[in-house]
Every structure is written in structure tokens, then in C-alpha cells.
């Protein structure tokens, strides 16, 4: 014989008791106490999801440049300033820009022999002269070129005051500058303060990687949301219908859906996308079709078990019509479980969308899209690591955010699923 107290049901845990008592908002607010890790998952991932949705609505806030335009030199590594031609002056020199040279006669200017600097500064001087002429002045900016063998000699010449100024490429000058304390960089020869740096670098045609990333968020989220809504809108009614009516129709539909489900989704999407041709609408259809069985299976299963419930029987006995049973007694009980899949489904759709455009099938080739950027980046993997790194991180973070949100919500709203 067993001890009688072992046969008693274990006392319910506090969180279960609490759950019975409080409402929707309290559940979430008290989450940290009850759900531990899962609560943190939901909080962090909702912040991430909101951030990405925000970026998708206002990509311009992160993207300072047009994602389709060349805005810098090609293959500029992240954070580095592009190579510009700079003016080198003596510390005590009163000169600040080329315009200050007007009327001083032929100013001795040192350049490295054969470097592009001499051409550039000459044309820049002519431009300064034209500007002066336009302003009504007769003064001219004139330079006397002093061509020297090496950059060190040029710096030496500025240091000793042998020449008034010099021009050289910023990247070459910067490492040498320490040895010549009296030489300073007066900014680029065009008068701007240094070149612009791109936080994530530029790509093979000089587009800003960050700008493309943030416009890519719009493309990715559009595909994710619309494709999921598409599958939801078709899969849920079909599942409800099949589960509710049963019979031959149900069996036939389930066989088709199961076969579709077993078939490699990406390959099906590839086929559909290939036949439809590249456009954002077609990629949405291709991905949407793919996830119809996911909704169908879950809704059908839930409908099957829900329709045996006592409340449905009660509704039948008081003469409710089939439609109203379906609409008012089954649908509300089935839909929460689907809503949670929705988030994970968005993540899957984004992944598949990125894969399709990586393969060159989904979108027109100029679209700022993460998958397309990754495919382009692969061609230049030997020289530009940043082209494949950042779009990949973007895809991963978005997918991670939506997956974690979905899974965390499942744990919170289906406490029965929590495994001890």
C-alpha cells in the first residue's frame, strides 16, 4: 500500500493560481516573476522587432544616402575616410585655403613627381580663380609647381619653409606626419574638411552599405509580413473548413497539404518565382503559397479537437447554425495558437525571401535587398569582408527577433506547454 498523501494531486504552483486570477496586461507585466528567461526573451525581441519595423517605415533615418546612388569611392572599408588630396601648410602659415593665395603671385607649391596631386591642385586653383572673377575680383590664384622625388622631401620642404604649401594624398601623408611637427593638414584641396567616412563602408559601385541595409529592412519586412498574411488568409479558412466538415474532402485536402508540406519549400518557391519572374509581388506569392500548409495543419488539428467540445455541443443543441458555430464557437478558440505561429512564420518568410534573392530569383537586381547584397558581396569576398558580413548580420537579427518573440509568446500564453 502506498502512503495516502502520495496519491494527492501536487499543490498548484503560485503562477498557475495567479494566472487564473489576473488579466491580459497583468500577465505580461508580472512576466518577469513568472516566466523568467522567456519573459526577457519577449521583452528583448519585441524591442528588436519594433526597431526593425521602425526602420522599415523610416529607412531614411539611418540611411543618409540614396541606396541606389554612388556616393563614395568603391570598396571603402567601414569607418575609413576615403583618400583625398589635402593641402599641407606650415603651422605658422596664414593661409587657410587656396582662395587666400589670390594676388600673391606664383606661390611655390610642392608635389610628389608623377602623383595626381599636381593636376588636381592646378585645376582647383583655376576654379578658385574663376570664383574670384565671378565675385568681381581681378586677382588670380597662381601656383609654381615644385616637383620632388618623394613625399618625405615634400614634407621637408614645407617644414623648412622652402615652399608655401604642398598637396598630397591624405592616406599617404597621415602616417608620416608625426616626424614633421611643423606641418599641418589644412583640409582637402577643395576646401572641405576631410573626406566623409561610411560607418559600414561602401560596396563595389560606391553605394553606402548602411543605406542599402536600412532600405533592405523595408523590403525584407514587406515580404515577411505580406507573405505571412497571404498564407494565413488562405490556410486558416481551409483548415477550419476541412476540420469542421471532415469526410472525403478533408482527407483529400489533407493529403495534398501534407505532400506540399513534405516537399522542400524553398525548391517549390524557386519554381514559382522562376515561372512568375522577378518582382516583389511575385516573391510574396511564391513564399505565401509555401506556408499555407503550416496554417492549414494547425488550424485543422485544433478545429478537430475543438468541435468535440461541450460548448459546441451545447450550441448545436440550442439550434445554432453551422456558420455561427464555426464563427463564434470554434474560430475564437483556434485563432490564438495561429497568432503565435504568425511571428515565427514571418521569420521563416524573411529567411526564404533572402534565400530567393540570394539565388537571383526573387527581386529585380538593383533592389536594395539583403539577399542580393550578399550574392553581390560573394564575388568580392577576397577584398571586401564587410560586403558579406553586415547584410548577413541584418538577416540574422531580424529572424532572431521574430523567432524569439514567437517562441516567448508561446511559452507565456500557452502555460500548459511549459515542460517542468
Amino acid at each position, binding site marked *: 500500500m502506498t502512503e495516502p498523501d502520495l496519491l494527492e494531486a501536487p499543490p498548484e504552483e503560485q503562477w498557475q493560481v495567479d494566472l487564473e486570477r489576473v488579466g491580459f496586461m497583468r500577465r505580461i507585466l508580472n512576466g518577469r516573476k513568472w516566466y523568467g528567461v522567456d519573459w526577457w526573451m519577449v521583452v528583448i525581441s519585441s524591442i528588436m522587432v519594433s526597431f526593425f519595423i521602425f526602420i522599415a517605415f523610416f529607412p531614411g533615418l539611418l540611411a543618409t544616402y540614396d541606396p541606389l546612388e554612388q556616393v563614395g569611392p568603391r570598396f571603402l572599408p567601414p569607418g575609413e575616410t576615403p583618400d583625398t588630396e589635402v593641402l599641407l601648410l606650415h603651422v605658422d602659415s596664414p593661409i587657410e585655403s587656396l582662395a587666400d593665395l589670390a594676388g600673391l603671385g606664383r606661390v611655390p607649391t610642392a608635389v610628389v613627381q608623377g602623383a595626381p596631386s599636381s593636376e588636381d591642385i592646378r585645376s582647383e586653383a583655376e576654379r578658385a580663380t574663376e570664383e574670384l572673377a565671378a565675385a568681381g575680383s581681378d586677382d588670380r590664384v597662381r601656383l609654381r609647381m615644385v616637383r620632388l622625388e618623394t613625399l618625405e622631401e615634400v614634407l621637408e620642404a614645407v617644414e623648412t619653409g622652402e615652399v608655401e604649401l604642398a598637396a598630397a594624398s591624405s592616406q599617404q601623408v597621415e602616417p608620416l606626419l608625426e616626424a614633421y611637427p611643423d606641418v599641418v593638414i589644412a583640409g582637402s584641396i577643395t576646401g572641405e574638411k576631410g573626406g566623409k567616412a561610411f560607418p559600414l563602408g561602401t560596396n563595389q559601385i560606391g553605394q553606402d552599405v548602411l543605406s542599402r541595409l536600412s532600405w533592405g529592412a523595408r523590403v525584407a519586412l514587406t515580404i515577411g509580413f505580406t507573405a505571412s498574411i497571404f498564407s494565413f488568409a488562405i490556410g486558416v479558412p481551409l483548415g477550419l473548413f476541412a476540420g469542421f466538415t471532415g469526410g472525403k474532402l478533408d482527407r483529400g485536402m489533407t493529403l495534398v497539404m501534407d505532400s506540399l508540406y513534405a516537399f522542400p519549400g524553398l525548391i517549390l518557391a*524557386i519554381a514559382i518565382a522562376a515561372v512568375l519572374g522577378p518582382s516583389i509581388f511575385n516573391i510574396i506569392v511564391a513564399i505565401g503559397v509555401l506556408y499555407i500548409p503550416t496554417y492549414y495543419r494547425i488550424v485543422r488539428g485544433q478545429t478537430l479537437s475543438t468541435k468535440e467540445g461541450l460548448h459546441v455541443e451545447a450550441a448545436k443543441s440550442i439550434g445554432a447554425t453551422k456558420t455561427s458555430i464555426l464563427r463564434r464557437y470554434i474560430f475564437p478558440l483556434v485563432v490564438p495558437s495561429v497568432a503565435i505561429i504568425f511571428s515565427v512564420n514571418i521569420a521563416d518568410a524573411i529567411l526564404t525571401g533572402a534565400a530567393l534573392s*540570394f539565388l537571383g530569383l526573387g527581386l529585380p537586381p538593383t533592389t536594395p535587398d539583403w539577399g542580393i547584397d550578399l550574392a553581390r558581396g*560573394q564575388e568580392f569576398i577576397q577584398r571586401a569582408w564587410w560586403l558579406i*558580413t553586415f547584410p548577413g548580420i541584418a538577416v540574422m537579427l531580424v*529572424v532572431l527577433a521574430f523567432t524569439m518573440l514567437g517562441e516567448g509568446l508561446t511559452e507565456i500564453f500557452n502555460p500548459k506547454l511549459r515542460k517542468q
Partner: protein
Amino acid sequence: MHPLVLTFLIFGIPAAIGLTWVFLRGSSGLRSYITTRVALTIPMILILATVVFLVMRVIPGSPIDSTLGPKGTPEIKERFAEQHGLNDPLAVQYGRFVADVFTLDFGNSLIGSQRPIVDELGERLPATLEMVIPATLLALGLGVFLGTRAGVRRKSATDYSSRIFSVMIYAMPIFWLGLLFQLIFGVWLGWTPIAGRIDPSIPLERTTNLLIVDSIITANWAALRSVLAHLILPTLTLGLVLSGVFLRLTRINVIETGQEDYVASARARGISQGTITRKYSLKNAMIPVITLIGLQVAILLAGAVLTETVFAWPGMGRYLIQRILSRDFTAVQSVIVFFALFVALISLAVDILYSLLDPRVRY
């Protein structure tokens, strides 16, 4: 001999022997299960082939347009349609298509050398198998090992780190993981080659097109080394991505079986934790994992398409993408049907294996 036939023999003969053995030794219940399951494979193939047929024919954008592109004049289009029987009623086309599927006669490629597609597949299928099989083994080994450890020591550092690993690996696009491996191991460290199956300067006589087998039977060790080196990154990429799912499932099942009464009673008898895990938990926890292998075939093939594209691996997936981009409609359709056949056969094999492990599974 045709490489496709050879490949089928290499994998088919052991499978057939195993199946016959099981069939002869098994109980009558098992026998009827296997018969029903084999019979069910045919409608499954039919449905998948029909889906492919419908996708390729019925949705807007006809095969004529997608093959000829915008350049095709009406006359050219008409001739093309006539040649490929696209003017026949849909039912006739469908009948011919299904007949082709069951006789494995896929016709000729529309572009380039216009070789029979079966020949092309004979070169590509072994390449895919050579990558996919080691990747599955890696995924299974890694997933079950880490999943068991995480499940046995719940809430330990191992548990949390393997859960984070499985979530991260799920969120990571497989092609990006491949690119990262190429960047790190191929470009920065220079340890492994980043593309292809074998160093093209090494001569190798190809009979089966499974390059490992080919280099072993010709005792060509230089080739074998090169083949294995080329295999590392694709296998690692595909294997790691697949291992995440196995890890999660193993972990949950080990936790669940760990709470069963028979485990508690084993523990009460003083059996060590290691023995309990191996002989009591893991064996039962493995049953759903085996089922998962069947479901994973879909993910595996999709992953293979992407991995092959990243690593320029001349397998089925890369062939599919190349043919889509060059608008070779017949080849595309055939490859997709071939994938469907593959899926149907693997899920058949897995279900039979499952029924052996779990005597409750019967029709």
C-alpha cells in the same frame, strides 16, 4: 554503365536487402505496414508531380515565355509549342508528364549541348549525395550529443549555451554561414579551398561520380585528399545548420523521458546516471528524432541548393538554379520532379525504420 544507375545500385542494393530481410523476418503486422506504406508512396509521388506540373503550367507566365524570353516572335513560339507538345489539351500533357516521371525519361535539355537530362542528373546527383550524407551524419551526431548533454544537465551552462547555439543557427541564413566560413577559413586563414569538388589539376577517372568512391577504387590518394578538403566547408555549413533542430528535439525528449517512471525506478535501483541516459532515456528519446530525419529531408534539400550555390558545388541544386537562370524549362521541371521522388523515397525509408524501432506504429 550510366552513373545514375550506379548510384541507385550503390544505395539501392543495401536498402533492398535490408527491406527484404525485414519483410521476411518481421511479424505479419510489420509486413502489412510495410506493404501499405510502399503502396502509399505512389499516390504521394503522383501528388507531388501534379503540384509541379500545375505550378509550371497553370500559373501565369507560360513555359514558352519563360524559355524564349521577350525575344520570341509568334512563329518561333508556335513552333516551340508544337515541338514540345504544349498545344495539346492539358489532360494529354498531364498524362504524358506522369508517364515520363514513372519511366524516369525527362527528355533533352533545351539549351547548350541538348543532352538527355537523365545524363546530367547522373553527374549531379552523386555530387549532392556526397555532400548531403556526411552533412546529415554530422548534424545527427552533433545534435544528439549536445542535445543529450543539455537535456541531462538542465539549466547548466552547457544547456544554455547549446540552446543559444540552436536558436542562433536557426536564425542564420545557411548561405551566409557558408560565406562566413569561406571568408574565415578560405580567405583569411587559407586552410581550405572555397569552391568546387576537386582541384581541377588532379586527374581522376570518374565511374560513379561519387568522387570519394572513385578515388578509392583507383587508389588515387592525391585526389582523395583534394576531394575531402573540398568537402569540409560545405559539409560543415549544412551539418551545423541542420544540427540545431536535432539538438532541440533531442533535448526536449531526453528531458521528457527523464521524468518517466521507469527512469525513476532505475535510479532508485542505484543504476548510474550514465547508464540510465544511454540505455533508458536516450533509446526512447531517439524515436521522434528518427521521424525528424524524414521531415528534415525537405530542409536538407533546400539547404543543399543554397550550399551548392555558395560553394559552386556541381550538384542538383546548383544545376536547378543554373537552368532556371538560363530558362531551360524542361530541365527545371525534371529536377524538381526528381527532388520530389527523392523526398518520397527517403520518407518511405524513414517510416520503415521508424516502424522497426517502435512496434506501436502499425496500420
